[in-house]
């Protein structure tokens, strides 16, 4: 987050201000390689995901954990690089932290099914 990622647009560019556009040019040229590199990594990680799903990790639950771990890493790269969350304003991070908190709460609610199974969720009992 501390990386300086301040585009001139954050300050003041009402139109194609010559010097700002020039500064931008150099800045984004540097990133083109990064975007392509992350894209390549994501494609590679997709192959890895498929491959790992056919590897026996001892239990189906273990396969789940491995697959979700790989997916989380992939999603992390999409969010950090493509969505520019790396170096993004604190205000957006604040929103997202709340969202993560409430979404985690939503998922934790599913644990209640151990205590109070919902009749009719399985095919045989519908």
């Amino acid at each position, binding site marked *: 987050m501390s990386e300086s990622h301040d*585009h001139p*647009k*954050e*300050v*003041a*560019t*009402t*139109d*194609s201000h010559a010097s700002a*556009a020039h500064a*931008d*040019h150099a*800045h*984004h*040229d540097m*990133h*083109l390689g990064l*975007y*392509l590199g992350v*894209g390549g990594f*994501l*494609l590679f990680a*997709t*192959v890895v995901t*498929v491959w790992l*799903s*056919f590897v026996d990790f001892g239990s*189906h639950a273990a*396969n*789940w954990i491995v*697959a*979700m771990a*790989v*997916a989380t890493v*992939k*999603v992390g790269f*999409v*969010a950090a690089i*493509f*969505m520019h969350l790396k170096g993004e*304003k604190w*205000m*957006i991070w604040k*929103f*997202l932290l*709340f*969202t993560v908190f*409430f*979404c985690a709460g*939503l*998922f934790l*609610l*599913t644990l209640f*099914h151990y205590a109070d*199974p*919902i009749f009719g*969720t*399985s*095919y*045989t009992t519908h």
Partner: protein
Amino acid sequence: MQIPHEVTARPDTGLYNAKLGIWLFLASEVMLFGGLFSAYIFLRMGAEDGYWPRGLLNVPVGALNTAILIASSVTVVLAWASLKMRKFSQYKLWMGISIICGAIFLIVKLAYEWPQKFDHFGAFIKQSELAQYEPYLGNAYLKEKGLPPRVEISGHLHGVEITAEPAGKEKLDAFLQDHHLKMEAGHDAAHPGVQLVTGKHLKPGTVEQLEKVPGVKLVAFEVALDPINAEPTNPESDKPHFWYKGATEKIGKIEREDVETWSAFAPKHSSYFAVYFTITGLHGLHVLAGVLIMIYLWLPIAGGANMFKRNPEHLANRVEVVGLFWHFVDLVWIFVFPIFYLL
């Protein structure tokens, strides 16, 4: 009306307004898809052994669609970077590729993957009758190996046996003609009243309609079995495969009265397909929305590519916002792919 801060940052937030807006929207989208994924967890954890299908989706096709979405995420970010560098023709190229990728994704889903499912037939056998269908299910073998039992027989419909009351003959004949189906009588010597309906266009949906023709009663299904039911004790069938294998030539017969429920691989087939079609359907609508917005920003119109001459930074911001949405759609798919296709 002039919306303020579409290019310059609002001093208190430090962001241009659309960026704040899209992130708030994406936060609500996380909750929307989060709700559906937690529904998936509920359904899957509640499913009894054998009632959560695996290996029914085409893994290479799903992986290809994943790659297409990832590639389009790269090209949309390159389109944005091109605008920041004020390279208009590069912008048009990258945005054009992004649009094509999104369109291919939708075509694969709607013209190939989904229709295949709607043509496939599956029948869940009643618990009390499972033993009778052991040659198609191989449950003794699975038990020995410690694998979950099979309760469904699936494949392509080859024919259905029916009985028909003479009073409804006219309507039945019209139905058969409309759907290019043939009917043979006397194919079962022991039950002379039973007639066999066959035809290239016999799909589960057609049989549902056939059943509604007055006087018609379903007696049995003849199914070109999926490999898993054709050779249930073949160790090859123990686990899902990478390459999708279609129905075999082997025909299996299932009595209607032994079947708990039967249908196409449609939402009503099972909790699995219900949640699969809900999530991939909602995701598909998001892909469609993204494609439409990207087309709008690509076309030479006032609110689209023509903005480049007037205010290139504003256009770059619009592309950044649709890009954020597009990356989110990609991000959801990165979870959808392993959850439905692989696990």
